């Protein structure tokens, strides 16, 4: 299940709903990404997230399908914000459920790497020293490359 929303959401509520869907799974891993209060450029005032619908949704659906093909998942959830966010607000929430603990961990990790480097979003951070667009760091691309399948 994938949700793109310009409204605030509550990760605890999302986990509660997800648990109901995932009954019988055994293992649930969840990731919450929150807007940080500080960045290299100072104190963060707002983070603006821009998407390109329906390309953004289509890419997220593809990543979810890839995760389902790769790991035996009982359920999967992605919630991603757009619009203007304040420090401490959730930007992204990913949850995975499986019989196997390892599968749940790896699938959540994989989805986050996708979201950080390939999901169709652009982020503009406004700090007390001005505004700038944030692009993925080299480490983000390295993290993503852990999942590339060579020769298959």
């Amino acid at each position, binding site marked *: 299940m994938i949700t793109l929303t310009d409204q605030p959401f509550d990760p605890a509520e999302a986990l509660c709903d997800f648990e109901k869907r995932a009954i019988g799974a055994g293992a649930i891993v969840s990731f919450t*990404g929150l807007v940080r209060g500080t960045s290299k450029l100072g104190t963060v005032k707002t983070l603006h*997230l*821009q*998407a*390109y619908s*329906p*390309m953004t949704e289509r890419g997220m659906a593809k990543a979810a399908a890839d995760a389902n093909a790769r790991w035996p998942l009982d359920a999967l959830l992605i919630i*991603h914000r757009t619009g203007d966010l304040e420090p401490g607000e959730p*930007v*992204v929430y990913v949850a995975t459920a499986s019989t196997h603990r390892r599968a749940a961990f790896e699938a959540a990790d994989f989805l*986050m790497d996708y*979201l*950080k*480097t*390939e*999901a*169709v*979003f*652009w*982020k*503009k951070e406004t700090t007390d020293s001005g505004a700038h*667009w*944030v*692009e*993925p760091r080299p480490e*983000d691309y390295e993290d993503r490359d852990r999942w590339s399948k060579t020769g298959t």
Partner: protein
Amino acid sequence: MAKLLYFGRLTDVFGANAETLALPAEVNDTSALRQWLDDDRQLGGTLMTKSIRIAVNDDIVPEPWPIADSDEIAFLPPVGGG
């Protein structure tokens, strides 16, 4: 008329998310569009970098890709959410 969309830092470069305009007759593929638009707005090569990808009618295309005056053409700087 073509619809051009500008994302990420290009929103600031163009001062807009989108504009609708008539493409000159000789601008018939994405390479010609990058060059013409960069020159027209005096962007000094900003649109020429490979890290900016182009989507035509909602699909990222290998370039050069043919374009028509009825297309929606989006300029996409490096993406990343989360």
